[in-house]
C-alpha cells in the first residue's frame, strides 16, 4: 500500500455544498490513500447521483492523483455514470437466464414506448432506461429493477404498465 499523503489543508469545495464535506470525511477515513479511489467514487456517485467534471476534479485534488487516472477509472467501470440519471430508473437484466426467458422483448417494448435506447434518459429527465449484465436473480427471470425494487417474472405489458405509472405521475 502506498504511504498516505495527507494534504496539509484539504481543499474545501468553494460551493459550500454539504455533500462535499461528507465526501471529504470519507476520503479522510481512507487516509487519502490512492487505492481508495474506487470506494471514493462509489460514495461520490451515491451522494451526487453522477460524477461530473467538477466532482472528479475535486476528488483528483483531494487524493493527489493525476486527473487522467481518476477519469480513466471513472470511465472504465460501467457502474459509474458521468451523466445525470432521470427521476426514475428502470434496469432490465440482460443476463443469460433473463435473455432466454424474454428480456429482449421487455427491453424492446420499453425502448419503443419511451422513445429512447438502453443507456439513455428521456428528454424530460423522467426516466432512465438501463440494462444490467446479470443481477443474480436468475431464479425469477426475467427480472427488472424498477427504481430499487427487483421485480420477478416481467413481461412487456407489466413493464409498460410500470412505465406509465411513473411517467404520468406528478413531479
Amino acid at each position, binding site marked *: *500500500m502506498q504511504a498516505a499523503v495527507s494534504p496539509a489543508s484539504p481543499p474545501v469545495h468553494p460551493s459550500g455544498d454539504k455533500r462535499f464535506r461528507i465526501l471529504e470525511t470519507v476520503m479522510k477515513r481512507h487516509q487519502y*490513500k*490512492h*487505492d*481508495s*479511489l*474506487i*470506494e471514493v*467514487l*462509489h460514495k461520490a456517485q451515491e451522494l451526487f447521483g453522477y460524477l461530473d467534471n467538477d466532482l472528479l476534479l475535486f476528488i483528483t485534488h483531494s487524493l493527489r492523483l493525476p486527473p487522467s*487516472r481518476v477519469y*480513466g*477509472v471513472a470511465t*472504465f*467501470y*460501467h*457502474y*459509474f455514470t458521468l451523466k445525470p440519471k432521470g427521476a426514475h430508473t428502470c434496469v432490465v437484466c*440482460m*443476463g*443469460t*437466464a433473463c*435473455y*432466454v*426467458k424474454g428480456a429482449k422483448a421487455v427491453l424492446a417494448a420499453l425502448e419503443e414506448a419511451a422513445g429512447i435506447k438502453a443507456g439513455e434518459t428521456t428528454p424530460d429527465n423522467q426516466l432512465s432506461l438501463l440494462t*444490467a*449484465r*446479470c*443481477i*443474480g*436473480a*436468475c*431464479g*425469477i*427471470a426475467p*427480472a427488472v429493477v424498477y427504481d430499487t*425494487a*427487483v*421485480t*420477478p417474472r416481467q413481461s412487456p405489458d407489466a413493464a409498460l404498465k410500470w412505465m406509465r405509472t411513473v411517467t404520468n405521475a406528478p413531479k
Partner: protein
Amino acid sequence: MLLDDLIRIKEQELAARKPFQLRCCMAAGCMSANSQAVKEGLEQAVKAAGLSDRVEVRGVGCLRLCCQGPLVAVDPAGTLYQKVAPEAAASLVASLNGGETALERGDPGHPFFKEQMSIVLENSGQIDPERIESYIAADGYLALRQVLREMRPQDVVNAMIKSGLRGRGGAGYPTGLKWTTVAKTQSTRKFVICNADEGDPGAFMDRSVLESDPHRVLEGMTIAAYAVGADQGFIYVRAEYPLAISRLQIAIRQAKQLGLLGSGVFESPFSFNIDIRIGAGAFVCGEETALMASVEGRRGSPRPRPPFPAERGLWGQPTLINNVETFANVPPIITRGADWFARIGTEKSKGTKVFALAGKINNTGLIEVPMGTPLRKIVEVMGGGAPAGNAVKAVQTGGPSGGCIPADALDTPVDYESLTKLGSIMGSGGMIVMDQTDRMVDVARFFMEFCMDESCGKCVPCRTGTVQMHHLLSNILEGKATGRDLARLEELCDLVRHTSLCGLGQTAPNPVLSTLRFFRSEYLELLRPEEPAAAAPAGPGAAAEPPSGGAPACSGPPGPAS
C-alpha cells in the same frame, strides 16, 4: 474468546430455541417476491395468536427453490410452504395448531431436495445470516479454533492438499497447491483475497452463499490466512449485490466484536483483518490480475502471468486468491477431515459443487450435488426438465467462457475434465437450460456481444477480435453471410483463443466453437449461397456446400470455381 465462550454461546442459542420454528427465506430471490413483508406478517400473526413463547420466526438464507418464492419452512414438521403471500401469514400460523391453510405446499421429498448433498450450503436456509450466534450454534468457528490451537500452518496446507479440493471459480486449480506456493514464498506481507465478483450471467451461487452464510466465508478466509501467513484480507464483491455486501459488513463487525477477527484471533498471536472492496461493474475483474488492479484502485486491466499472484500479487506481495465457494469448503474439511472430503465426488474432482439452475427449466434455484452427478439427473430429475412439455435442447455452463452441451450428451458426469472434453467448462456453476425455441446462433451472438462489451481493450486480439466475431455472427443471423464468412469466423476463433492476454479473450470464442461443434446445421441453414450471380439459383444451395468440415482456419473458400 475461548472454546468455553463458544460453547456457552451455542448452548444459550439452542436453549432459547422454541418448539416451533418458521424459517423464512430472506435471500435476494425471495426478497424480490416480498418475503420481508411475509416475515413481518408471520411475526405479527404469531403475536396475535399469543404464541410468542412457542413459535420463533427466523429470517434465513436461501431455501433453494427460487421459482416458488417466497418460501417458508416449518420445523419440526419439515413442511415447506411456497408462494406465501403476506396475507396468508395468519392461516400459516393457525396451521401450527392443527388449523387449515390453503397455502401451496412444497414437496421436501422431491428429487430437487432429496438428491442434494449439502456441504457448502449446509447452513443455508437454516441459520440467520445476520446473527453470529446462529452460526456458532451450527458449530461455526470451531474449525478456526481447531486450526489456531491444534495445527501448524503446514498442517492446514497439507489437509487442503489431501482433501483434493479444487478451485470453484471455474478453472479448477488445486487449492492445496496454490496455498503451498503462497505459504512458501518469502515476504514480509501477504494477502488473501476472496473473489466474489460473480460476473457470469446466469450464476448466483456465490451471491447465495454470501447472503445465507457469510461467516462461513470469513472463517474459511481466516483459516487460509493462518495457513499462508497473511494478515490482511479483501473480499471483492460486485456492487450489484447490495444484500450480500450489507450482510458481509454485519458479519465482519460481529466477528470483530467477539474476537474472531482482528488482532489476536481466539486469543492467539495471530491477527487478520478483512476489508470489503466493492466492484464497479466490470466483468474482466473476475480475472485475478485485473481484480488485484481493481483492489488497488486502478482500472481493471489484466497483466500477463507469470508472475502469478501467489508469488507477486497485490502491491507486489504474495497473494492468495480463491473463490467464495472454495473458502466455504474449508471449515468442514478441517472439522471433518480431509479423508472425509476426498471420499466424495470423482477421482479427480472431489467434494460437491453448487449449481444455479435457471432458464427453461421447471425448478429454478440452487442445488448442491456431489461431483460426478450426471447432467441428466440434474436437469431432468432434479430440475424437472423444460416447462410446457418442451424438450431440453442444450445446457449452457460456464457463462461467456463456457459452452453449450447438447441434449444427447446429458449423460456426461459433471466434473472438470468431462465438461472440458465437451468444449465447455465447469465455470463458477451457472447452468442455463435451453429448449427448442432457442436459436443457438443467437445464443452465440449474445455471448459474443457480452465479451465485446466487457473486453477491457488492453490486448488487440480480444479488443478487435470480439468485435469482428460479433459482426460475423450478426451477418450470419441476418442471412447475409456465406460459407466463406463461416470459415473466417472459425479462423478468428482460433486466433483470439490463442493470442489473447487473459482468460476473457482466451475463452471468448468458446460459445461459438461449442455451438458450431454441436449445432453446426443451424449455422449452415442461415448461410446464403456463395457468389449468387454465378451460383445456381437452386433453392437452399447453402446447405449443399458447407465449408470444409472441422478443419480450422484457412481452408480456402469452398467452391470458388465458376
